[in-house]
């Protein structure tokens, strides 16, 4: 379940991507995500795919991980693809009773597939190579200018980093509670809809309780270690912006322009 998610997981490493300034990585990631939506041509698709594969290799990540990251997408696709296929108006390709598949529907579905896959790959690339702490740091630095207009940049970054930290924790919790209820015969992965929804209650109530408890404990632990927000806090690791960072952002922008066919 939550455990198999590639998005949000971090794998320590020594690649160039790992050591890049997190702020620059976030900007580059945002630009690449934008690029996904700029792409309208086959050649653009290929360019972006090649770049992503290249970056994946540069980060020293195994291709298996990429496949694993796509797995949870299947459920989304199962839900959305039929709608996209059958309910897009256009010249019909195949008719099956009241249902008709149009060529625009097929085209739209392929684009949907491509965009989702690319977005998952890009966001996984960021989280796989950036520790949650670095991610929050980068975010805070990017948001720092907004602090002038009283935007709670540090708090925002803290909330996000805690949320990211909680994903695997909740995953573990879900694993334990799921197993406990399954051992009591809960039909979590079998049975009809009624049984399953009953099992879902048995799963969700303890999960929600556990999250509240965790949040409570964390707040208490932070307060008892004198956490008072961002004012006056220094960092253990200072990161600097160098040539590599500038290159990364410019490179991402160039990819976006080329793949988007705007250059």
């Amino acid at each position: 379940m939550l455990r198999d998610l590639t998005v949000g997981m971090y794998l320590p490493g020594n690649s160039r991507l790992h050591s890049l300034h997190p702020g620059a990585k976030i900007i580059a990631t945002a630009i690449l995500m934008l690029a996904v939506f700029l792409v309208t041509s086959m050649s653009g698709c290929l360019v972006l795919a090649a770049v992503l594969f290249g970056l994946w290799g540069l980060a020293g990540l195994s291709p298996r991980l990429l496949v694993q990251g796509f797995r949870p997408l299947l459920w989304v696709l199962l839900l959305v693809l039929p709608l996209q296929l059958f309910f897009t108006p256009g010249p019909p390709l195949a008719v099956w009773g009241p249902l008709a598949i149009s060529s625009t529907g097929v085209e739209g579905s392929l684009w949907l597939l491509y965009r989702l896959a690319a977005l998952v790959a890009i966001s996984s690339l960021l989280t796989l190579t950036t520790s949650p702490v670095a991610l929050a740091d980068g975010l805070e630095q990017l948001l720092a200018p907004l602090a002038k207009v009283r935007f709670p940049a540090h708090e925002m970054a803290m909330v996000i980093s805690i949320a990211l930290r909680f994903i695997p924790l909740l995953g573990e919790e879900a694993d334990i509670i799921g197993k406990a209820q399954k051992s009591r015969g809960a039909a979590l992965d079998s049975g009809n809809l009624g049984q399953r929804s009953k099992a879902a209650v048995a799963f969700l109530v303890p999960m929600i309780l556990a999250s509240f408890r965790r949040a409570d404990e964390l707040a208490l632990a932070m307060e008892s270690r004198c956490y008072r927000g961002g004012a006056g806090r220094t960092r253990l690791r200072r990161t600097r912006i160098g040539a590599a960072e500038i290159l990364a952002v410019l490179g991402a922008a160039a990819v976006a322009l080329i793949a988007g066919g705007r250059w």
Partner: protein
Amino acid sequence: MIEARNLTYMYRSPGVAPVTALDRLNFEIRRGQSVGIMGPTGSGKSTLIQNLNGLLRPTGGSLTVDGIRIETASKKQMSVLRSRVGIVFQFPEQQLFEATVFADVAFGPRNLRLAAAEVEKRVARALEAVGLPGEQFARRSPLALSGGQKRRVAIAGVLAMQPQLLILDEPTAGLDPGGRRRFLQMVRALRQEQPGLTILMVTHRAEELAGWVDRVLVLHEGRLLMAGSEHEVFTRTDELTAIGLQPPVSAVVFNRLRQFGWELNSEALQPEEAAKLIAGCWHKRMEEKAKCCGT
């Protein structure tokens, strides 16, 4: 009841080398036996437990529980297995979710599709067994009970399924000494009332097993390091200490006294027994001393 032949389990996760959690375990547990499982953190205890009711399936070797081969069990066999093997997980109070104690304990039996009257009977019996009389507790919210009581409700929830094999995973963790004692009394009572019930209890404390289990298994780094009666296992105090476990204090004291030349012929794992034996030996020594010095 349980037969493991070269039982192996490996955790595989993306991008990380597979971890061997269980490494070719061989053991057998007969029906009605009470068995203690010990091992330091990360020795594979929890993995072993989850293999026993098919939450995890062995990646190598074979495991048979109550006649069902876990590696190849069908979905149907699996649900039969789950109804026969009751697992009380660590901190089971966290799995409570219903509005009343009754409903929570009834969750398992209802999943077994038992008739309402039978469910009611089982819930009453289970609550009785854990020392929470139904008339007093059944209508209360499980979330409003104390920590120790919540845990007992959770255990009742497993007992109400009337398993053939009851597995307790560190059931006393986080309880105060009184709570721990009451819990152990409850398990012993259970054992007397249901002689056919096979009980497996995982714990870090040797003392909790002394005096009632038939066998002890010690796991270390995924391997079965020791298996035998409590006397056979707990008297290997130095080995237990070396892997980070705490042997019963009495066994340690006995071993030290022997090193000092005391003639202690039998073993004692509980303080009362130990005190008696030491006192007896001391009297003998004093008498011998008196004789040889001719006073």
